[in-house]
């Protein structure tokens, strides 16, 4: 039975308006990145007066974008790998074993997820400064320090989501592996992890995306050499000019890898979010 016309028309109108709402900023980003500077300093124009790829060439020299890119890649990548690896072990323990303190552990992990990042920023800043003074190990302003702070949000989320995912892998599978002579770690890596690959991908994608877009810690915990894209993009505004065309070009360049990765892997992410959140 075909839906009634009132439904079809509502759907058409709603989805058209929503598409416009979603697309307008995307259009501004793309079209402005192809405009000469005069087009973005004067009245807004929907389309460039002349198409130019100049902004895409200039972005690399106006600010050290390549270095910021590498910094972001290292920080987000390392935080992702660390939190996924560590989360695999602890999620396995929580999902497969009963032990004293299990509830305390899961509740703690769950509740730290709801804490605002600002809560940890100040203490971590003081800890880093103090460790630096006492031992000479520079955590403040270093990549290592930044990666560690990123674990404040990526680790609890990864643990939480992977517990849900591991729970959905039938216990019979790894119990069979244990009976067949695998150790617990063997069962984890030969049975549970392969069965939960989509969940692990989802966790990794999510952790990477959040770290790649992180602004708060990056704005306080980095210096000139370790600055990430989140802070570095501000460099396109000088006292005299704001190079909006270059800002848009750079925004597009830093977005393409994550958006492409996300759209490719979003099936896994949805499945992972569902396992964790919807149940």
């Amino acid at each position, binding site marked *: 039975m075909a839906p*009634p016309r009132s439904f079809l028309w509502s*759907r058409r109108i*709603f*989805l058209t308006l929503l598409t416009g*709402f*979603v697309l307008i*900023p*995307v259009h*501004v*980003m793309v079209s*402005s990145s192809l405009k000469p500077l005069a087009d973005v300093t004067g*009245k807004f124009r929907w389309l460039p007066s002349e198409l130019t790829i100049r902004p895409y060439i200039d972005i690399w020299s106006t600010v050290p974008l390549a270095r910021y890119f590498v910094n972001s890649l290292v920080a987000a990548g390392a935080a992702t790998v660390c939190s996924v690896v*560590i989360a695999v*072990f*602890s999620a*396995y*323990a*929580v999902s497969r*074993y009963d*032990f004293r303190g*299990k509830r305390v*552990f899961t509740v*703690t992990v769950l*509740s730290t997820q*709801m*804490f*605002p990042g*600002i*809560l*940890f920023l100040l*203490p971590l800043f003081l*800890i880093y400064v*103090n460790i630096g*003074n006492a031992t000479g190990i520079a955590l403040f302003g270093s990549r290592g320090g930044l990666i*560690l702070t990123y674990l404040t949000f990526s*680790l609890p989320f990864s643990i939480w989501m992977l517990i849900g995912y591991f729970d959905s892998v039938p*216990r019979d599978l790894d*119990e069979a592996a244990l*009976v067949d*002579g695998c150790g617990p770690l063997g069962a984890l890596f030969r049975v549970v992890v392969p069965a939960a690959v989509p969940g692990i991908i989802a966790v990794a994608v999510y952790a990477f995306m959040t770290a790649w*877009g*992180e*602004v708060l810690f990056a704005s306080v915990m980095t210096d000139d050499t370790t600055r990430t*894209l*989140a802070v570095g993009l501000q460099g396109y505004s000088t006292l005299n000019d704001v190079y*909006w065309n270059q*800002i848009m070009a750079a*925004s597009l360049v*830093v*977005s393409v890898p*994550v*958006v492409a990765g*996300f*759209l490719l892997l979003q099936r896994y992410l*949805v*499945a992972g*979010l*569902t396992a964790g*959140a*919807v149940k």
Partner: protein
Amino acid sequence: MTTTAEAERPAVRTSPPGADRGPRRRTGRIRRVGLPYLLLLPALLLELLVHLVPMVIGIVISFKELTQFYVRDWGAAPWSALDNYRVSVDFDAPAGEALLHSFLVTIAFTVLSVGLCWLIGTAAAVFMQDTFRGRGLLRALFLVPYALPVYAAVITWVFMFQYDNGLVNHVLHDQLGLTDKPSFWLIGDNSFFALLTVSVWKGWPFAFLIVMAGLQNIPRELYEAAALDGAGVWQQVRRITLPSLRPVNQVLVLVLFLWTFNDFNTPFVLFGRSAPEAADLISVHIYHASFVTWYFGIGSAMSVLLLLFLLLVTGGYLALTSRGRRKAS
């Protein structure tokens, strides 16, 4: 849970037939008891380092008179008893008044943003439940705001909100003639709406994603039975789809609330280190108190108060929704 099965398992593994059972069983025992903790060890150490220790330090410095002079050695800062808290909640004095204002702005912003995100996300998911031409493409497109890095997306909105060269004023003033003169969007009262717009633009796809996933769990037979009974599409949405989404919505709304309430990235990229009064969200407010005016002690006290509030709200919400669930079943 299957406690007995778990207890047996390592014993089976470590005692193959004919093996010397005594000592092996003992190592099996030790491993069985210790293994979960061993697996948790890395996570425990990191949780300690990035969550528990900072939280303890945060609570300690909320009782200290910590300013920039003591950053290098915060332990030496003088104790201030409850002064920081007194200053934070003294709503007649400037600091407390600003905190209260910021709190109310955050509540209003969060309620509106979560409501709109939920509404748009649910409507989009419900409308896209059936297949139609272009559905896959539209779905991918709708996820783009969510996938874009916050600073790249929000900086585009900053450009659109510019006074003399932005799209918003161009459309509202030059093209549609809705306003007499161009408006400022990133300062003054309009900034609240600018922030809300950006937050909804960035946030609704998450609701869309989760609701879509929830829709897949509704059995098709329900709709078929309803259709046989003569229920139209609108009735099916109201009687089947929305009620079935209840458990999904309970989690979704809580998650959206916490994310929006705690959001720092969006207002920070939109407004910089100090937000306009009308859009002074609490996380930026605390950031400002701590890293711009350097009152670390007061910043910490505000953080602790914020944490208490979030614990209360989450606890209350969970208690309410779980009671509702029990009643329903």
